């Protein structure tokens, strides 16, 4: 089978002639500096949010992570591990240590500790803000390593630079978005790299590293199941396609054992690592690979005819074993309620699952399937380069390249299910595009070289010193270096597999064919130049788009909002205003109820106890809050009062036109509430199927607590019209009083409104109406007619 091109470079080999070895060293140094630049690029392109806004933690989950990190830095790891948080999910509380993926927190905490020990006084918040950019630089380097394993240095560099700028990754890792994905993507790529590395070298050392980095991935993100399913699939693929090698065994078997053990160490995963179906695939393949390995071994030591006999037996035995195991697994799976799959992973397999069964999952925007424009928005030109990359991977098809292809295919599918998983697709796309681009450059440059072969030496040498001075766009640097790298790489490979050379060339030629129009191996120079120019143009376009995305689209920290209007820039800082009010004007153990989106922020910024938060682990509890919000005022008051709630916080965008406010989320509250408490019925809130809050709205809607809390005193803002700027309509019910709630605070732009629950009445009124007039009715009253049914 074809040994991947690159292993050649690290094998001890006869010293090549001095000029080439010079270039060789020079190339490595150059590659190193380019990588450095890529790192800087990846880091700096994510700083727009800090420059344009401020160094602040972004939207929702990051605030929780930030709070946890603070706790960690204050109380140490063991207390963090055993942290029972009674500030959230009142009165249930939450065992943070056991329900959180600690990777991110531990990473940031460690960085902070190291900096402290170096007497670099950075606040925890600063560290948290800049964790994501730093790790995206690491991710770029990991991509370089991975792609290098697959297709060589040139492809590696290209892929790295692409990943450094890919918008979909930027969207999750700008400075301040302190979320699991920030480190998880690095861990993901690095794990894959180590897997490939082990696969190529077959050394236990890398296998160990591999399982360790898998451990880090498990610590960081629930997406680790992607790894533990993808790698077995690849192993299976290799076995089925007859590419089994003992290196495959070494790459896989230790990973499963060590990886499972290590994963079980993470509290949040625990026994799930062996109990839930997401992991069964790996065990199955584990058994299969042993059977196969045994078969190969026996084949090795037996004479062919004897092997025939053995094969039948071994295979039969193996089949029996497999069937037995499959039976066991099926039994286990069938016995477990949700067939052993957690809701999120089920919604991966069956895209309609979530919307059908789990409104909470469906209610999160990032769990919706993506739209086509979002692919172009997040991947841009990569989307077109990927097919070329796939083709390039098929020539020649090595274990590594087959793995990358598999990775791409799977991630494409998953990203089609959830927008969020576009994040997993991005690296694959970058790798593919990197391969494609570098292949293209290789072909073009080689053809140019051959065309002016007489000048080739000169060109290469002075390209070296033209290089550093050349124009600033790192992308362009790389493009230039491509030809060097590739041309350099040609020599050694040509040198030591002479016999293979022609094959390689033919293969490349085929790939060239598939990309460009049918031509012999060497393209005419002008075509090459033109194509080269076009490709550079493509790259430039990508750079422009990425920078724009980083600067405009993805750097808004949703906690502070800005809007440009004719009279300049408006800043809406209502959220922090409200949270500051809470933290200064309420008792320290008061309970604040809001829809779960704002739970994390309330606990982190206002330091008050909340009923539900963004970690939506208890559907019933959320449904209770949803029911309270969708009930009439009195019922809502009773529900909140039973939960010891003192304050209710609603987000209202109607005044300034902030679209993602509670009224727009209200239907989800109704659905989730109705899912558990059937007396809440969605149709009651819809006027013939459509959601409206104007005069056509249903009485249930107009009397719901959420409506009242949102629109209380709203008419006073615009002189009796009550025009909602989000819904673009006049509200249905303008003048009403609150009997059980009193408004205590409303932020400057009315975006956050805080209400206090009134205490229970001191006296219980009698039945008699207050008789203002002197006329005293002697007609029997409702109460007394109960007593004499004759009137």
């Amino acid at each position: 089978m074809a040994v991947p091109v690159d292993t050649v470079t690290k094998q001890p080999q006869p010293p090549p002639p001095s000029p080439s070895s010079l270039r060789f060293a020079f190339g490595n140094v150059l590659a190193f500096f380019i990588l450095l630049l890529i790192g800087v690029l990846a880091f700096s392109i994510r700083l727009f949010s800090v420059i344009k806004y401020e160094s602040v933690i972004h939207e929702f989950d990051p605030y929780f992570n930030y709070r946890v990190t603070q706790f960690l830095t204050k109380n140490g790891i063991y207390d963090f591990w055993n942290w029972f948080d009674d500030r959230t999910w009142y009165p249930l509380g939450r065992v943070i240590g056991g329900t959180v993926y600690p990777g991110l927190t531990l990473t940031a905490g460690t960085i902070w500790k190291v900096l402290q020990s170096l007497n670099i006084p950075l606040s925890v918040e600063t560290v948290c803000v800049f964790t994501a950019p730093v790790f995206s630089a690491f991710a770029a380097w990991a991509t370089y390593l991975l792609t290098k394993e697959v297709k060589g240095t040139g492809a590696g560099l290209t892929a790295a630079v692409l990943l450094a700028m890919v918008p979909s990754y930027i969207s999750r890792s700008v400075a301040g978005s302190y979320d699991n994905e920030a480190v998880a993507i690095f861990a993901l790529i690095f794990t894959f790299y180590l897997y490939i590395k082990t696969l190529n070298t077959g050394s236990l050392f890398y296998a160990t590293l591999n399982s360790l980095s898998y451990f880090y991935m498990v610590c960081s993100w629930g997406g680790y199941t992607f790894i533990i399913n993808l790698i077995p699939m690849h192993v299976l693929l290799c076995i089925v396609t007859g590419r089994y090698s003992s290196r495959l065994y070494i790459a896989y078997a230790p990973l499963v054992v060590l990886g499972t053990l290590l994963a079980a160490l993470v509290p949040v995963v625990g026994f799930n690592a062996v109990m839930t179906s997401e992991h069964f695939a790996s065990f199955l393949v584990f058994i299969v690979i042993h059977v196969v390995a045994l078969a190969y071994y026996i084949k090795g030591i037996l004479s062919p005819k004897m092997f025939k006999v053995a094969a039948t037996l071994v295979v039969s035995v193996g089949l029996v074993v497999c069937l037995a195991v499959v039976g066991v697994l099926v039994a286990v799976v069938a016995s477990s309620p949700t067939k052993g799959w957690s809701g999120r992973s089920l919604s991966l397999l069956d895209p309609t699952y979530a919307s059908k069964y789990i409104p909470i999952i469906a209610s999160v925007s990032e769990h919706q399937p993506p739209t086509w424009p979002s692919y172009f928005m997040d991947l841009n030109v990569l989307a077109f380069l990927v097919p070329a990359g796939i083709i390039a991977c098929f020539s020649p098809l090595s274990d590594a390249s087959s793995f990358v292809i598999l990775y791409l295919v799977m991630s494409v599918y998953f990203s089609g299910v959830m927008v969020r998983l576009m994040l997993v697709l991005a690296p694959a796309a970058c790798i593919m595009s990197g391969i494609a681009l570098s292949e293209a450059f290789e072909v073009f440059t080689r053809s140019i070289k051959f065309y002016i072969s007489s000048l080739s030496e000169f060109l290469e040498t002075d390209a070296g010193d033209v290089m550093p001075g050349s124009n600033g766009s790192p992308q362009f640097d790389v493009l230039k270096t491509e030809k060097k790298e590739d041309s350099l790489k040609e020599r050694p490979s040509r040198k030591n597999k002479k016999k293979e050379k022609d094959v390689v060339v033919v293969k490349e030629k085929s790939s060239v064919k598939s990309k460009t129009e049918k031509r012999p191996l060497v393209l005419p120079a002008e075509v090459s130049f033109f194509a080269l120019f076009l490709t550079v143009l493509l790259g430039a376009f990508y750079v422009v788009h990425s920078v724009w995305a980083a600067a405009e689209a993805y750097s808004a920290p949703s906690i502070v909002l800005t809007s440009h209007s004719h009279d300049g820039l408006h800043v809406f800082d209502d959220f922090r205003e409200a949270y500051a009010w809470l933290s200064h004007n309420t008792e320290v153990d008061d309970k604040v109820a809001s829809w779960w989106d704002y739970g994390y922020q309330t606990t982190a910024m206002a330091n008050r106890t909340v009923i539900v938060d963004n970690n939506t682990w208890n559907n019933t509890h959320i449904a209770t809050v949803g029911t309270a919000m969708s009930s009439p005022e009195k019922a809502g008051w009773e529900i909140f009062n039973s939960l010891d709630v003192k304050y209710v916080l609603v987000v209202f965008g109607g005044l300034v036109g902030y679209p993602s406010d509670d009224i727009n989320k209200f239907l989800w509250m109704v659905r989730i509430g109705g899912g558990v408490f059937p007396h809440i019925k969605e149709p009651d809130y819809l006027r013939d199927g459509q959601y409206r809050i104007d005069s056509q709205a249903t009485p249930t809607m107009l009397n719901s607590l959420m409506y009242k809390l949102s629109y209380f005193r709203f008419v006073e803002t615009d002189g009796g019209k009550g025009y909602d700027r989000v819904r673009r309509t006049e509200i249905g019910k303008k003048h009403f009083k609150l009997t059980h709630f009193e408004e205590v605070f409303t932020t400057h732009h009315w975006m956050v409104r805080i209400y206090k629950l009134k205490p229970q009445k001191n006296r219980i009124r009698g039945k008699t109406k207050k008789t203002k007039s002197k006329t005293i009715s002697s007609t029997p009253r409702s109460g007394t007619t109960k007593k004499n049914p004759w009137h």
Partner: protein
Amino acid sequence: MEALPEGVDIGDYVFAFEIVLSDPELKSNMQLLDLPGKNDVALSANHLQKLHLSFLLTTPLGKPFKPHQHIFVVENTGKQFKITLDFLGLVEKFFYLSGQCDIELTVGDAVMENSFLQLLGSIELDLPKAPEKATQPPPQVVSPYLRFGPKAEINHIFRVPEKRPPQEVSYAFLGLVLVPLLTFLVGLLRLGVNFKNFPTSAVPATFAILFHGGIAAVLLLYVLFWLKLDLFTTLKTLGLLGIFLMFVGHRTFLTLPQQQPS
């Protein structure tokens, strides 16, 4: 009428009383009852029937007399001299509650000395099922004495721990688990292992010993970790041992004679 007390300045009241329970199809059953007698009537009616009650009250001189108070109490409810109870109209006000109703008659006036409250009898009503939107009957009145009473005690039921097997089994298997180790040793002997390969010269030998001593030390450290140490001290020590081990191991492997049993 012995119920009437003696010395009435107005005289005896002649008293005639009847209850008629009539069905819609006008076949009615009438009961006369002599009032002070203890013969309570027990009737049963459904919502289609009517109940006629009437009584005549006269002075000894035979003049009819109309007292100030004459109240039928049906579930303490008042009613007229001569009355027709149309249950059809009443189901609403009875809140569709079927069951036993007492019929009481109160007759009183300032000039009467023998004002009385008399149980006439009971009537068994069966009324139709309550429709959805019927007004709910008033909450059952809890007497204040009960309302303020103590509540029933509640005790939490704890999870039962998993049942443990007898310890003998565990110990037996502990022994059993150690058997393969012995067999392993025996097997090694039967394979005729020997330490010919052990470095003979002093320096490599010490390194070799140090190397394996290092491994043993690490494993011992693990055991201690399991027994009492916490993770961080373990990792620190492990780091030191690891460095030592790497160095020694390197030297060992350098000096290790290549064994090529071909």
